[in-house]
């Protein structure tokens, strides 16, 4: 669900600067005299500061305010990472600066001004670690129990707030490349050209014609399709044909057939085409009409073949594994209000088909 935004990925290379900086400062007496907690906090603040500064050029043309805030934030972190070795006042200021940065990001995400991506989320994780370390730097004179209790719960609370807010923001404001939770869409042009509309219709017609014999599941079995996992949570079933694994968008040889379970047997609803490798987008003759999607950060449970969403920090429940699927394109041969090439089959259409089959 959370990929690395293309305009953010270059910023990650700035972290390579940390190595020469470390080689330069590790011999300095001030650095050697500092506590390990201080050093770790300083490095983490330096890392997030550099990342913020590296994000400025890509944000400046369209989001000047965000770029200005990145500049202030990045410089603040750089100053604090140096001040940690020379001053006494840096600790409360760093606590405030880190908290304010995290909360500001959450505000931006919830308001929909920023789409959460992996670079932003990684920055928050680094800042949470730095905040935790800054909070652990002891102030011996003030060890009253409310302070100790606050020190124990503040970090988990902040981490929870961050995770939940990024989750909520991402789901409430999906951008053009996130059609639904857990899926990343192929980048395409916004409006289909007449040629693309024609090509999409042709693909639908060819798929409908090719799939006609498979209305009978016995024919699908004879052709090499095997029934996939079945879940009570989803009445759609994917039947896969391993012999078609390397085929690319051939209506006569789709990788999967998608059947709907109804009280009176299986109803063929469409086909699913899948590319051989993760990140390899397929040909989209219909442009935005035939947009491929790739499921990322899905927690797959081998016990009962069930799914859940990974958290923004890419953690799954115990026993589940995080998986990313190669890009896929569905072609629905029955009416789907979500679209004939939509990533999902509309539940209302499924219910109607089930009613129709039972009546």
């Amino acid at each position, binding site marked *: 669900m*959370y*990929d*690395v935004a293309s305009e953010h990925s270059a910023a*990650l290379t700035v972290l390579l600067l940390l190595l020469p900086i470390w080689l330069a400062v590790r011999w300095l007496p001030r650095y050697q005299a500092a*506590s*390990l*907690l201080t050093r*770790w906090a300083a490095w983490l603040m330096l890392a997030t500061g550099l990342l913020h500064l590296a994000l400025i050029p890509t944000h400046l043309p369209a989001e000047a305010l965000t770029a200005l805030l990145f500049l202030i934030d990045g410089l603040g972190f750089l100053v604090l990472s140096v001040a940690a070795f020379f001053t006494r006042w840096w600790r409360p200021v760093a606590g405030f600066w880190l908290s304010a940065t995290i909360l500001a990001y959450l505000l931006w995400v919830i308001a929909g001004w920023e789409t959460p991506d*992996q*670079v932003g*989320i*990684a920055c928050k*994780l*680094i800042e*949470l*670690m730095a905040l*935790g*370390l800054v909070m*652990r730097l002891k102030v011996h004179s003030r060890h009253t129990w409310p302070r100790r209790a606050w020190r124990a719960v503040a*970090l*988990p609370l902040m*981490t*929870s707030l961050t*995770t*939940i807010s990024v*989750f909520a923001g991402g789901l409430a404001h999906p951008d053009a490349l996130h059609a639904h939770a857990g899926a990343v869409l192929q980048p395409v042009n916004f409006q289909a050209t007449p040629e693309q509309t024609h090509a999409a219709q042709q693909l639908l017609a060819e798929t409908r014609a090719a799939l006609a014999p498979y209305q009978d599941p016995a024919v699908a079995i004879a052709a090499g399709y095997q029934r996939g996992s079945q*879940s*009570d*949570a989803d009445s759609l079933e994917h039947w896969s044909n391993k012999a078609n694994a390397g085929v690319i968008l051939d209506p006569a040889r789709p990788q999967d057939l998608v059947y709907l379970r109804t009280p009176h047997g299986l109803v063929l609803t469409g086909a699913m085409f899948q590319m051989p*490798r*993760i990140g390899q987008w397929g040909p989209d003759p219909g442009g935005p009409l035939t947009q491929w999607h790739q499921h*990322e950060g899905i*927690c797959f*449970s081998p*016990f*009962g073949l*069930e*799914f*859940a*969403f*990974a*958290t*923004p*920090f*890419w*953690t*799954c*429940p*115990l*026993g*589940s*594994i*995080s*998986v*990313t*699927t190669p890009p896929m394109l569905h072609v629905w041969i029955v009416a789907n209000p979500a679209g004939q090439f939509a990533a999902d089959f509309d539940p209302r259409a499924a219910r109607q088909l089930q009613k129709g089959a039972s009546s």
Partner: protein
Amino acid sequence: MTERLEIASVLLKIQGTLFLIAGLTALPFGIVEPSMRLEGLMTILLAVALYVLSRGVRRNRRWAMRSTKIVELLSLLGSILLAILPIGAVRGPVPLLTNILLPAAVILLIGLRKRKDAQVGVGAVTAA
């Protein structure tokens, strides 16, 4: 020496919270997916265990150190194995930080503490 444990304790607390959220997130899926219910609850229990370990590590408890190493080693090995498989389990900086670097850092911090202890011990014997 105790500062290493202090840092490890902070990392464990963050890791515990991440697991807590993962467990809570799985519970709504558990309404229709029975195994997610169990996995969610197990994950919440793991999160509680990590909080307890975080406290134990900070207080330099031997049992906490040993248990943390086992948990983190299993977590790290599992993540590396999944990263090698072509299933896209570790894609991008966030899973790398959360699933590989975080447990590796905790193992190193606790492991280095022991090595430093041993060095101090050898130094003391030589001096004597």
